[in-house]
């Protein structure tokens, strides 16, 4: 990845567009959008139908956010926009105009990179320690929600963690270990530095 953090990178795509349509590709409505992802500025000019999720995955190569249900029910696509967790599958890319997006790829910062960190955020390390995943498909979304949950002071009890994490489904059923991982980071005072 290119880390010119202040340079705006133009990733305007070729004629490809999501989905099929009867209209010729060059006639499809397009719109421009500029936003920042994990600290890097981007400018896209794309088919208006492109979701933020598809923009991240297909245009920017950030495949951490996953396409699960694609209708707002599973949370696998959770990313952080201006400090709050949202569903990137239900947001058009153009709606991210001027916003700051963080994906799992941008979660760990220099602060986290102690000798034993492996370049991972404390929540990522806790998920590993507690075996809080099986297949791993939901994990990026779980971790993004979990980090925000602690930053918002909502990890006071297992019950509270379960309620505020209910927008992230895990079909492998790793819930007990997910709760344990979050509880550990919350208990370690993760709220001070877990924000994104």
């Amino acid at each position, binding site marked *: 990845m290119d880390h010119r953090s202040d340079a705006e990178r133009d990733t305007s795509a070729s004629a490809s567009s999501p*989905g*099929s*349509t009867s*209209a010729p590709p060059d006639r*499809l*409505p397009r*719109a421009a959008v500029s936003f920042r992802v994990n600290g890097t500025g981007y400018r896209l000019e794309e*088919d*208006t*139908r492109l*979701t933020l999720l598809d923009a991240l995955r297909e245009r920017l190569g950030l495949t951490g956010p996953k396409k699960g249900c*694609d*209708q*707002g029910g599973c*949370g696998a696509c*959770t990313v952080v*926009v201006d400090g*709050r*967790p*949202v*569903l990137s599958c*239900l*947001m*058009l890319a*153009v*709606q991210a*105009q001027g916003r700051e997006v963080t994906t799992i790829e941008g979660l760990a910062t220099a602060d986290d990179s102690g000798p034993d960190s492996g370049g991972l955020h404390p929540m990522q390390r806790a998920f590993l320690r507690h075996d809080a995943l099986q297949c791993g498909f939901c994990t990026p979304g779980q971790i993004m*929600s979990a980090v*925000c*949950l602690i930053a918002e002071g909502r990890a006071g009890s297992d019950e509270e963690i*379960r*309620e*505020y994490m*209910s*927008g*992230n489904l895990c079909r492998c059923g790793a819930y007990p270990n997910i709760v344990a991982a979050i509880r550990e980071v919350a208990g370690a005072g993760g709220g001070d530095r877990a924000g994104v």
Partner: protein
Amino acid sequence: MAVTVRAFEYIRATDVAEAVAAVSSDPHASFLAGGTTQLDLMKDGVLRPHRLIDIGALPLGGVTRLADSIRVGALTTMEELAAHPVVVERLPLVRESLLLGASTQLRNMATIGGNLLQRTRCGYFRDPTVPACNKRLRGSGCAAVTGAARPHAVLGVSDHCIALHASDLTTALVALDATVHVEGPGGPRSIPLAEFYLEPGETPDLETVLGHGELITAVEVPLLPVGTRSGYLKVRDRASFDFALASCAAAVLVEDGVIRTVRLGLGGVGTTPRRARAAEDLLRGRAPTPRALRAAAKAALLGAVTVPGTAFKVPLAERTVLRALQAVTRVGS
């Protein structure tokens, strides 16, 4: 089955009048706010706008405290309203209806104006491969009346539609006599929430009194008198993040052992958010005895019309009302 989202032109509105003009002049244009219902139904192929007018950058956010009410800008998110100090202190039923109404991610995206206009979860409405849906196409029939009906409505239904109104928030707001402020091609107007929704009758496709191009700008919510106890009880299939099978927004002020004011909203059972006025009338001026609460709960469901799949909802909703009333009248809690 992959449905293709219809291609649409996207416009970022920069002022309210421009947005209203753009939508009202084009029958195929729609407003876009949080988009959580709009985009979902576009992916399903139910909504196929040719043009979306994004109102997200308009100055319609924020909560303003007025003398005896709050004015909630239409673009305030569910999460912002739930966290507002006045709502926390004076409108617990609103806060609870929001927190129980969606996942954290959806609450961060979905706006209050959009919440009022969210569409039904009826699976037949949301699946265009089902030909019979009077809400999608007037006169095409209703697959729900004879189909799987567990999530459907029992109050305000017609032979033409039993689709459930899905919002939790409106259940609380209708109990509070909220008012919807609207800007339209003919100028602004204000509509009591109780008169905002239309029962399906013979025209299930018409859900509100809004004309095409009218834009919700704010919702005004009266505050409860100090000392009122209120809450929102929601019963659903899952423990969290699910739509209501039955719900009740209750606000009660008891003085000297007598119910002085009572407000009851019913959710999960109606084609529109319901005010349980008959139940309120039975309680006002009475002591909150177990017998009085039970009678009120029964009265709340009078007039229910069920199909085999929805018959369970009547006793479930009665018990939901009863439990909600018990919670806000219990002495010493």
